[in-house]
């Protein structure tokens, strides 16, 4: 009996099954910033828009599969492709010898120029890399532009500042934290349209190409992708997409003609010669990157020590205010502690660096230092407050009987004992801070974890850099843990 109404449903399912049998085509890209390539639709953030979105859809459709977006951080795209997190990766992925060695790389489908963007007032001053000696120049990490800047650090004496996205470099340029941004012309044009007071310099510093990547050994998929791209070049569908996003120009006409005639070899020469040197691996990589890792470890150590020192100082003041202060002060400090402890430190760092930039423009290292110190001060204040409260009331009465003022009692009797009680847990927090300091890489500070990430991106593996980085963290944190244990035994107060 039930079959009567069930059978149409079964038929429907069967009819739908041919499409369902084909797994969706997972395509990986970074939607942070990313306009006009891939970005969340401002009107409907659950939807992706951009020319690379349309190209991904075009490829999926041609392969008879449905497109499925996978969010991957831009600098992790290669590693993610190797892991097989997605079938194809695109979204501003540049052709380079390193990529061709490790991944499947399609024919190039878009040609971009690396251009300098500067503040309008610097238009005549900063027009080439050579003119930027002694300044800070920003770009997106893991790109051709970053490689160019790293080389210019040696030859032109400028400082390369690496970002994890392509929006904040321009924000910081407008704010005066950097003096120029080197990036792909379509990103620069977007930024100039978005942010007032920026101009693009006409000189082109390099030419690059966007490609689609696949995991290595996916020859059939790669060949299919190439077929789709070549067909779309031939019948003008790619041109239509690029025109819709207003990025079509004569360079693309020439590129598409060349690619259709010569395939991959169309862009062999000049670009690949100027791009980064062949990646190094294993021991050689370790030797080459060790000085940089050590320097980054020093940044981590200095930052952590300074931040902890400041945090303890502020924490002691906050705790003192919370124990001795009036109602208003106690209330205000309680709000501070709860707000800081109840929100992510990453959010606080972003607010400190970008959020309050209109009010106070802190250099990256100072913002990182203050952000960490203000965050940890809340935790240290709680440790110190409970230590203050652990000193028996009888001792405070005894001090009062002997004629000590409240301030003297705090300074000579209560404070020093509380500090001894607090020191071991504070040292434990120091170890935590050492590791949390890696978060400040979002403010462009190159500390140990960030340097490791750069190294991993550069050599295309996390294994050696990860182990080296871990070893350095342990070398810094183990003595601290040991110190904490020793302090604990030495200053353990009886009955307290």
């Amino acid at each position, binding site marked *: 009996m039930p079959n009567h109404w069930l059978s149409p449903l079964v038929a429907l399912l069967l009819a739908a099954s041919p499409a369902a049998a084909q797994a969706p085509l997972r395509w990986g890209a970074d939607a942070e910033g990313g306009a006009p390539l891939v970005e969340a639709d401002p009107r409907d953030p659950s939807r992706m828009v951009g020319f690379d979105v349309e190209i991904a859809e075009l490829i999926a459709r041609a392969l008879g599969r449905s497109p499925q977006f996978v969010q991957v951080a831009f600098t992790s795209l290669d590693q993610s492709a190797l892991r097989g997190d997605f079938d194809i990766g695109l979204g501003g992925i540049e052709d380079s010898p390193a990529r061709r060695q490790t991944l499947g790389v399609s024919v190039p489908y878009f040609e971009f120029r690396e251009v300098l963007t500067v503040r309008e007032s610097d238009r005549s001053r900063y027009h080439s890399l050579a003119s930027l000696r002694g300044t800070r120049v920003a770009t997106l990490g893991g790109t051709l532009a970053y490689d160019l800047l790293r080389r210019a650090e040696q030859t032109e004496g400028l400082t390369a500042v690496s970002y994890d996205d392509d929006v904040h470099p321009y924000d910081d340029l407008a704010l005066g934290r950097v003096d120029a941004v080197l990036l792909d012309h379509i990103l620069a044009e977007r930024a100039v349209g978005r942010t007032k007071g920026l101009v693009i310099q006409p000189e082109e510093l390099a030419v690059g190409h966007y490609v689609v990547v696949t995991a290595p050994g996916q020859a059939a998929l790669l060949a299919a992708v190439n077929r789709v791209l070549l067909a779309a070049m031939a019948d003008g569908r790619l041109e239509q997409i690029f025109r819709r996003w207003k990025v079509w120009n004569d360079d693309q006409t020439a590129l598409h003609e060349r690619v259709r005639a010569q395939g991959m070899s169309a862009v062999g020469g000049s670009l690949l010669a100027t791009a980064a040197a062949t990646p190094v691996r294993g021991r050689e990589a370790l030797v080459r990157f060790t000085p940089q890792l050590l320097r980054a470890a020093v940044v981590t150590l200095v930052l952590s020590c300074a931040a902890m020192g400041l945090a303890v100082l502020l924490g002691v003041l906050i705790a003192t205010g919370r124990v001795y202060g009036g109602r208003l002060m106690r209330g205000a400090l309680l709000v501070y502690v709860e707000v800081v402890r109840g929100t992510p430190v990453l959010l606080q760092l972003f607010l400190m660096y970008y959020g309050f930039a209109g009010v106070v423009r802190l250099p990256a290292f100072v913002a990182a230092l203050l952000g960490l110190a203000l965050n940890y001060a809340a935790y240290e204040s709680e440790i110190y407050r409970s230590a203050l409260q652990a000193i028996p009331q009888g*001792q405070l009465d005894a001090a009062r009987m*002997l004629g000590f003022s409240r301030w003297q009692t705090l300074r000579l009797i209560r404070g020093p004992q509380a500090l001894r009680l607090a020191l071991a847990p504070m040292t434990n927090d120091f170890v935590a801070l050492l590791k949390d300091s890696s978060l400040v890489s979002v403010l462009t500070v190159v500390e140990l974890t960030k340097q490791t990430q750069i190294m991993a991106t550069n050599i295309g593996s996390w294994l050696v850099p990860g182990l080296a980085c871990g070893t350095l963290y342990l070398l810094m944190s183990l003595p601290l843990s040991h110190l904490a244990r020793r302090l604990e035994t030495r200053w353990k107060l009886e009955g307290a």
Partner: protein
Amino acid sequence: MTPVVSLAGVQLNRGGRPILRNVHLTAEAGEVVALMGLSGSGKTTLLRLLARLEVPDAGEVVAPPAGLVFQFHFLFEHLSALDNVCLALVHVHRRPRAEAEARARRLLEELGVGHRADALPRHLSGGEAQRVAIARALAVDPPVLLLDEPTASLDPARRADLAGALRRLAQSGRTLILTSHDDDFVRAVATRLLVLADGVVVESGDPGTVLTAPVHEATRRLLRQERVE
């Protein structure tokens, strides 16, 4: 002689409950006044009132700055015995460090703990800590010395020593007021005894007389309990 310490009609409540009711007490220089009573009778509160650590709800308290020796000593745990005694001399009375140390050493010697001057409080025995606490209170030379259960952490031999030391302090013109559970000790050291029950002084007078022929039921109960212990 004018009294050094005087309490008149003192009333003290805590949480709406009376702890002390209509207490009168005067003490002159050279006197040793003992306060006895069961736990919760208000002895320690009376001492804290004299120490100005408590404020009465009614009545009048006249007392000069006093030294107070707590039952649990409350030495400053991060400082040596010597520094515990010196600290107030140096920071409150602004004496030179050397002079303060000399006085502290002398006091510790007199109380028989000179050899423990450099020890931290957590390394002292109960009796030693007791005497360091007395030295700390005496360092600033208060005219009145208050002691809460000074015999609690002492063995019998040490109690006799302490009785001698306290008598000498009284002879030098100080007023001593102490609480105790130990009737032998009170007999040996006190010139006057007050018995408290439920915050009221129920009996007072010469210690020998009060302890030998107690008039009030509370005193008799106290002595019975004392014997059992």
